């Protein structure tokens, strides 16, 4: 009876001799080295592909948000708080994308924004139409919201419809919104500056609302000022 289970283990049984700690360290070290080589190899191999994927994804998203655009130009804010054009339109430091249509006319500006979500940072882009003073589209690029609930901010058509014509008109002074963005319960949106939240994803909806409110206060006046300088010249 007692010999039976022994037989199964025979293959794995270690010699009775004590295993020295030297051998343990050696074994761990060897496995660690194999692991390191594997990870470094995979990282090196996939890095360019991942970077290219991300750039392509961002590029595709910019044109999705700003329909009608065919070319774009990247801008960033320099140390003096001035907008500067970037030489490479796929530069990861870009904060704004000025989008032009086939006739080289400015159709809108895509703004990068981010903020704290339910679990981690939400990164998104939204399109701003300076002529109509409206947000004309929004897309979440990165989030770790709860699957099935919070992640609806990325694909729920009713929620995304909020951002197809969201009013961000400035007061004549040009520094504050005439109507601050408001978050209302699902289905209660009746003003162009209201965002209707997703039922069951209140925290994530609130996060998107906060990101847009803060970004529209910080980024849009800068853009408006920059555009008026350009037309003035």
């Amino acid at each position: 009876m007692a010999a039976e289970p022994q037989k199964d283990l025979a293959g794995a049984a270690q010699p009775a001799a004590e295993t020295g700690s030297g051998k343990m360290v050696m074994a761990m070290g060897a496995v660690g080295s194999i692991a390191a080589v594997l990870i470094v190899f995979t990282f090196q191999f996939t890095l360019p592909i991942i970077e290219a994927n991300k750039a392509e994804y961002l590029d595709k998203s910019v044109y999705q948000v700003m329909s009608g655009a065919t070319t774009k130009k990247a801008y960033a804010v320099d140390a003096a708080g001035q907008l500067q054009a970037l030489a490479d339109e796929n530069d990861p430091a870009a904060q704004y994308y000025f989008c032009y249509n086939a006739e080289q006319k400015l159709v809108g500006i895509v703004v990068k924004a981010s903020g704290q979500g339910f679990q981690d940072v939400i990164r998104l882009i939204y399109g701003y139409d300076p002529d109509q003073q409206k947000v004309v589209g929004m897309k979440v690029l990165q989030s770790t919201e709860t699957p099935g609930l919070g992640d609806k901010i990325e694909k729920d058509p009713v929620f995304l419809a909020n951002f197809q014509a969201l009013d961000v008109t400035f007061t004549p002074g040009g520094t504050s919104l005439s109507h601050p963005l408001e978050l209302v319960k699902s289905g209660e949106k009746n003003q162009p500056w209201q965002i209707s939240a997703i039922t069951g994803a209140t925290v994530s909806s609130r996060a998107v609302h906060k990101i847009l409110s803060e970004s529209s206060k910080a980024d849009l006046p800068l853009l408006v000022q920059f555009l008026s300088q350009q037309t003035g010249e």
Partner: protein
Amino acid sequence: MDQPVSPQGPPNMDIFLKGLWKENPTFVQLLGMCPVLAVTNSVINALAMGLATMFVLIMSNLLVSLLRKVIPKQVRIATYILIIATFVTVTDYAIQAISIEVHKSLGAFIALIVVNCIILGRAEAFASKNSPWKSILDALGMGLGFTFAVLCLGVVRELLGNGSLLGIPVFGESFEPWIIMILPGGAFFVLGGWLLLFNWLKIRKSAGVQHG
């Protein structure tokens, strides 16, 4: 009932098949419940999770089996975790390279494959005692069994919780989704339902054997 075990152990086909049904990691062994409950709210998430887990399972079983004679048994668990974590990291990069969209939808759960006890369980219970070839078969069987199980949950939960399959609506506009089904609570209900069904089938089968 007990069959005499041949010196080579059970035949290869049985090693492969036991993970699919008789020793299904989810429905019979009830191992690795965290991803089963967490990422099965849609079919595509369940499928991606199942395949990623299967890949890690096969690779770690293979490496553990190859190194089984060199790893001192006092440090085996630490070594297995190291091996598993390595392949999870590799999988993470690979998925990012294949599709940013899929990587986005799985989010944090890929990293959590490390702590899936099916993988550590197979390394300890099988790969550390068997040849590389048998370990791969075992991992393939267990991986497919796991994928089958998460798909069982994913199909029901997406269908009832979202009214769709693979993102395609099936019930039309008038269907009111059962929100609970995509919440963690729904995962427990669906898992309970499937366990009830599989255990009932098992009891019926063994009753049939007795009468026959």
